[in-house]
């Protein structure tokens, strides 16, 4: 809150957004620092991929929905992290609560791993259908593990008679810990590694004791195969944390000063709302499940109007319903943060799968013309910094900022270093209004000082009808032109001053430039690291709209541009062509509902890029 005097509400300089008076001085430089920290965090992520120890293990657990695969993934991921390994846990699941056939893939390694390979070292099959689905990823050296009661005729499978073993320790609900115990033995680790992880997962003493007992049964049963698929533990890196993309977005929102979230549940966006609900009390955040997405975004806009810092979290169909609210946001020049979690469409599509096919609705939805920004994080670190930055960006530009993630990024578990938090707590650039306050008074870059009702003595009037500088309805043609121009002139801030830069992986002098956005980052980076093709680099675009000069410059320097994206029609390629005039020579698409694997990108590079 600021106790602004009348002169505090005026803007001094058109170019630097540094406002006069106590109230405004905190602001702009802090943004720059935040950006530097953001890009530093991103480059550190990449640097980790170069560690030289290449030992790693990929393990898959497959079963029906309701068998607790997520729990197994969490237990094992934590055990690997505590054992000094880097770990990635990717879930693929069907849209159902029980049955079906789902799987989690864990990749653990001594170097940082941020993407998936196809090949499986260890495959635990808890249901019969799984084998058929996973056979393509299994090779002669893959160890298959299954209950002989289910896989009667399967040759060469390591038998793990779960039903029989769990009968004496409380039944099938302890299968998960039993499986974890068996796996722990197969990779040659002591039971204590697993017990520490279980302690973290099960807080109830009785439940913990029973799960530890089950883990021991599994571990002891594996005695004959101890270390068959070994990867040695090492010293744990102190302070490492285990988070998925949804948690990173939620924590980024808190770091960005979010005080209000209203949303309607929809996979895969719901977890962000769920995490913030758990933090509502501790961090003083209003969390409300709206009756629909239309209500959610209108609540968000109401909150910003009254001094809140609001966000909504949604997915494609829900975002469609928000389109009118997004347009209102443009009309009343409200800040707004929208988390748009992509899943394959059209219609209901594949609710639990991944895709990058909502870029164009993020860019074009909402009637009329008004500025917006779209940020597409490619890692949990970027999800954190993008979400935090989105609040600053929205507040300073008085425009909507969309964080475009996808199911793959959100549901994947990663080990990471703790986030670097901002030095100062962010707050809104609001002023105490004076008697003559006009909400839409002209200002540099189209920004009018933003007042809120109840702070100061002026009237704060916003209207979705075309309005004059006081917010009153008008049909004056000259005022119309000046208001359209005012709104559109805010785009410069988003394109330049507040823009998040892209990341270049590979040599600074390149002939071929592979361009991606969002969650493809780690896969492409690892594939390039593996093959080291000649004069080829990868540009990971984090802010995908407005397209910054930095992206445009890189594109203009390339002889050949290849755009990779998780959709069927090349939405980003189209946007780049339109915005930069550069020709895209090839496009790599995937749209079966799964993310690219490293092997797939390696194969594409082999076929289409000179090595």
């Amino acid at each position: 809150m600021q106790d602004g005097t009348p002169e505090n509400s005026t803007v001094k300089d058109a170019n630097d957004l540094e406002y006069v008076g106590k109230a405004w001085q905190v602001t702009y430089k802090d943004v720059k620092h935040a950006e530097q920290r953001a890009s530093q965090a991103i480059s550190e992520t990449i640097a980790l991929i170069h560690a030289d120890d290449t030992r790693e293990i990929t393990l898959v657990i497959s079963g029906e929905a309701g068998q607790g695969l997520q729990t197994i993934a969490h237990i094992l991921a934590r055990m690997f992290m505590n054992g000094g390994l880097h770990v990635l846990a990717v879930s693929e699941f069907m849209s159902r609560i029980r049955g079906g056939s789902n799987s989690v893939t864990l990749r653990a390694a001594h170097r940082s791993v941020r993407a998936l390979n196809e090949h499986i070292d260890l495959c635990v099959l808890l249901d019969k259908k799984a084998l058929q689905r996973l056979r393509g990823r299994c090779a002669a050296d893959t160890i298959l593990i299954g209950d002989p009661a289910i896989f009667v005729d399967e040759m060469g499978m390591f038998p793990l008679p779960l039903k029989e073993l769990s009968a004496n320790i409380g039944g099938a609900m302890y299968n998960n810990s039993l499986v974890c115990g068996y796996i722990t033995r197969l990779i040659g680790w002591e039971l204590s590694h697993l017990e520490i992880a279980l302690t973290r997962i099960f807080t109830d003493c009785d439940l913990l004791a029973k799960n530890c007992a089950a883990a021991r049964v599994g571990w002891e049963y594996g005695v004959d195969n101890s270390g068959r698929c070994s990867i040695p533990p090492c010293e744990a890196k102190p302070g490492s944390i285990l988070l998925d993309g949804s948690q990173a977005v939620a924590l980024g929102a808190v770091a960005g000063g979010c005080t209000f979230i209203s949303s309607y549940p929809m996979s895969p966006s719901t977890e962000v709302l769920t995490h913030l609900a758990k933090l509502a009390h501790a961090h003083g955040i209003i969390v409300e499940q709206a009756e629909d997405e239309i209500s959610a975004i209108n609540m968000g806009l109401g909150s910003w109007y009254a001094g809140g810092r609001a966000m909504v979290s949604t997915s494609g169909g829900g975002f469609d319903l928000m389109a009118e609210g997004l347009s209102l946001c443009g009309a009343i020049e409200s800040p707004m943060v929208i988390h748009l979690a992509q899943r394959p469409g059209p219609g209901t599509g594949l609710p639990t799968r991944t895709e990058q096919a909502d870029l164009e609705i993020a860019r074009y939805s909402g009637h009329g013309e008004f500025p917006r920004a779209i940020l597409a994080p490619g890692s949990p670190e970027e999800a954190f910094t993008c979400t935090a930055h989105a609040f600053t960006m929205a507040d300073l530009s008085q425009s909507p900022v969309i964080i475009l993630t996808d199911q793959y990024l959100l549901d994947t578990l990663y080990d990471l270093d703790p986030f670097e938090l901002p030095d100062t707590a962010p707050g809104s650039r609001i002023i105490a209004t004076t008697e003559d306050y006009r909400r839409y008074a002209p200002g540099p870059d189209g920004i009018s000082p933003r007042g809120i009702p109840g702070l100061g003595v002026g009237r704060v009037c916003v209207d979705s009808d075309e309005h004059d500088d006081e917010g009153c309805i008008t049909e004056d043609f000259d005022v119309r032109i000046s208001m359209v121009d005012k709104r559109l002139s805010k785009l410069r801030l988003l394109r330049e001053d507040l823009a998040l830069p892209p990341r270049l992986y590979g040599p600074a002098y390149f002939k071929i430039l592979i361009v991606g956005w969002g969650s493809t980052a780690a896969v492409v980076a690892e594939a390039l690291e593996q093959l080291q093709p000649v004069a080829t680099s990868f540009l990971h675009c984090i802010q995908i709209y407005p397209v910054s000069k930095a992206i445009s410059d890189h594109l203009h320097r390339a002889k050949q541009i290849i755009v990779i994206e998780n959709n069927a029609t090349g939405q980003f390629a189209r946007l780049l062509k339109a915005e930069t005039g550069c020709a895209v020579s090839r496009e790599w698409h995937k749209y079966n509902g799964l993310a690219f694997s490293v092997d797939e990108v390696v194969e594409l590079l082999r076929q289409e890029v000179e090595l």
Partner: protein
Amino acid sequence: MSENSYLRTGCDVAWCPGCGNFGILKIVNETLQEMELDPRQTVVVSGIGQAAKTPQYLNLHFFNGLHGRALPAATAIKATNRNLTVIAESGDGDMYGEGGNHFTHCIRRNPDLTNIVHNNMVYGLTKGQASPTSPHGLVTPLQVDGVILEPFNPIAVAIALDASFVARAYVGHADQTRAILKAAIRHRGYALVDILQPCVTFNKLNTYRWFEEHTTPLAADHDHTDKIQAFARACENDPLRLGIFYQNEKPVFEDQLAAYLDDSRPLFERRVDLNKLAETVRVMG
């Protein structure tokens, strides 16, 4: 106009001569004057339509948003700063048609706001089509053979949802309407005031005279704490009853939010506690 008027001067008012909206605007202004509400702490939220233009003519903060969406915005404004007095004001098409889902769930939420609905039983701004409250048989440019849908009964719906304050008024009875509005604004919780008004241009059936003949006050001994009695009166169509049907004190939405459990400040006065956030990251990770 008296000295402490809440009316904005010099407006080009967009209503037809004789429109019931003028009467409602006058009554709202007089009510606010009598209550001496602090105009700097009062926000009027509206949607789109002729009634939704009301805030334009008041000297108060306003949020004139989307058609049908006044209640979500109003709910959030009140929740974001509990010191504000919030009035959500729009027409019958806006609140009961386009905003029908928000209407029902806003009642369930029970934020402390006053919901004034200008109910003229027809669409004005889009030129005379049926509204959710149009009577059976009303012939319009679009319902050329007359309305065949059952009219929406906002009073009965609100009571069924256990709204905390439910009233119907008629613009022609200024004294009673002012008294109802005052009680509604004073009431802590969601308060519905459905104000009957004629549309002199498009509704030739429900005229000033029709309302005089087809409305009557609730009986003097009506017990507005008795939900069943209130519902029975709400179901009476002819004459339509006027007055406070139902009042039910219960906890308001914003007071129950975790964000206010140990911090009563409005959201704009808050900053994230970075030490606490560091701890949250550690615990979550």
